[in-house]
């Protein structure tokens, strides 16, 4: 059957074969991502590394560290502005990679109106409080029209990892426990370090860590030696250390007063909304 068909089509074979050759050559070039062809056709698979954030407030020292990792989007403080009359705030800069930015406002009396260039984002009776959002990046100024005192807090939403410096007093000499993050229900990697600070408080540091991004994650201590599953962790007594609003980088957290880390044997990254243990770390004392 095929031999007959091949014979019948023999006249067209050179043309078909030439087209096939061209398709094969093109496929070879795209498959090797020559000239970035695969990325152009099917999207970037190796994005440019971007600088990490170094502080929860914008405008910190420029970071030499660059990364491909992304965090759960988080809000970085850009600036605060106060006044008691109409004015134009000082200029501030919204990062070009910011997802969007917001103005959290409060006012005491009269009426408050806030404009960004070309857009009125707040128009409200006072006293009052609220949040307005904008998306244009770059240099910005807020034009405020008010007849009483007001307060504005500007934040930008970004998704780069935050790499905080260790707190003063965090050193090998003050380290009292450590462990490595491992996957439970989701990806988890990096180091967990616990320190006794000179002022007597305990602090936990997540070093070079990554946890699958989600909102509503928090860091907890448990007495389980090496928890392996959500089912194992769910009924176990746990103590809340702090929210994990940033899911990549290096972060510091102060343990709540009265919590003695020596009585706990593991750390869990817990998602309360899903009742799921994302990652865990068995703690080794000393």
């Amino acid at each position, binding site marked *: 059957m095929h031999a007959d*068909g091949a014979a019948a089509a023999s006249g067209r074979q050179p043309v078909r074969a030439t087209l*096939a050759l061209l398709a*094969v050559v093109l*496929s*070879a070039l795209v498959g090797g991502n020559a000239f970035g062809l695969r990325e152009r056709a099917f999207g970037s698979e*190796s994005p440019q590394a971007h600088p990490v954030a170094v502080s929860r407030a914008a405008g910190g020292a420029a970071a030499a560290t660059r990364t491909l990792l992304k965090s759960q989007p988080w809000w970085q403080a850009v600036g605060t502005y106060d006044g008691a009359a109409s004015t134009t705030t000082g200029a501030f800069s919204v990062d070009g990679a910011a997802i969007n930015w917001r103005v959290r406002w409060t006012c005491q009396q009269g009426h408050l109106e806030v404009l960004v260039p070309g857009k009125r984002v707040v128009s409200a009776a006072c006293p009052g409080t609220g949040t307005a959002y904008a998306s244009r990046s770059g240099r910005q100024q807020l034009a405020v029209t008010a007849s009483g005192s007001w307060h504005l807090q500007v934040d930008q939403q970004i998704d780069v990892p935050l790499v905080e410096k260790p707190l003063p007093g965090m050193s090998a000499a003050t380290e009292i426990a450590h462990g490595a993050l491992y996957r439970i229900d989701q990806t988890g990697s990096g180091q967990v370090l616990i320190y006794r600070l000179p002022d007597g408080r305990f602090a936990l540091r997540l070093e070079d860590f990554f946890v699958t991004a989600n909102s509503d994650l928090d860091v907890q201590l448990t007495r389980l030696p090496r928890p392996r599953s959500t089912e194992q962790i769910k009924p176990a007594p746990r103590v809340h250390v702090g929210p994990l609003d940033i899911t990549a980088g290096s972060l510091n957290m102060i343990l709540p007063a009265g919590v003695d880390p020596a009585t706990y044997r593991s750390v869990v990254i817990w998602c309360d909304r899903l009742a799921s243990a994302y990652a865990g770390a068995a703690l080794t004392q000393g």
Partner: protein
Amino acid sequence: MTTGLLDAPAHLPQITIGARTIPVQLPNPRDPRLKLSAVVVTIHVLGQTLLDWKVSIAQIAVSMVFCAAVECGLSFRSSGVLAWPASGLLTGSSIALILRASGTRHGDWWSLHGIEFFLLAGAVSLLSKHLLRPGGRHRFNPSNIGIVWCLLVVGPNHVFAQYLWWGPSRIGVSLAYVVICVGALWVLRAVRMVSMAAAFLLPFAAVIGAYALLGSSFVAIWHVGPVSGLEYWADIALSPEVLVFVFFMISDPQTAPKTARGRVAYGAATALIAAALIPFQATEFGIKVALLASLTVACALVPLLDRTVVRPGLQRARLHVRPVVLAMAVIAVAAPLDTALLAHNAQIVLIEKGQSGARTAQ
């Protein structure tokens, strides 16, 4: 996978549509492709029920129907016979057996997420079969070249091959091994490919064992930390995915040498090509592409194997440099070269670590 056509019977039944009488070729119960189809469908059932595979029933069905329809149309156009598209169905189900669209979750039974990639792989498979025919026969295993093309050209952001590790279900994996091994005996004996399979598995297992001893490792989204040592050897050499590849893909009699000696050489050559491509790869994605690309290269080398191993004494025919021969040469060079380039792709490492992309662990 194995997609050879049997000779058409002398007297075919006919159907009449309007004024036109069309001969119809129905499925042949002795066709070994029916055995292979039965095995593949059984594995698909296990994948959907016990193995939590990230492929939907809709993806499988559309892939099969598309390939069957294209095969049927091309076959009718060339021969005037309305033939049961056994090869097309098998190509479609084989693509769905191995190819995965990133972001598809197990249990989304009717999801058509990423269906375009299955269709692209199917189209490339069948076009290669009908366009690249030096000497009047196709040289590349259709589903293999379609999957390799999709993995290399579309890339790791959107597609991947079924994991080497088939999941935590001991019952499911044990049943899969039983189906694969029993199915292998059933199918390979019928097409006289048992020695070819052994010629692949023995050197492949030995070389992968040597790599494990030398400290090779790879990262995979289903594993915490790098896979190394005994795990490296077992997860590659004993993977059910590798057994499926050897027993049901390499064993296509249409694209393999015709003699027993040639088939042994072909199995060993495929193993050695795979073993040569694998050590560059630090990710499971790269290892799977290396494995699959080894067959693409081996298929392109079958005419040379036929000349040098099977009939070394025969007078060499003059090599005619025609477009189709050039196309085969380009494929034979580009498949391993593009596979080797995956070793330098940092994004694949992030994907395999679960730190980027839409894939999730088993």
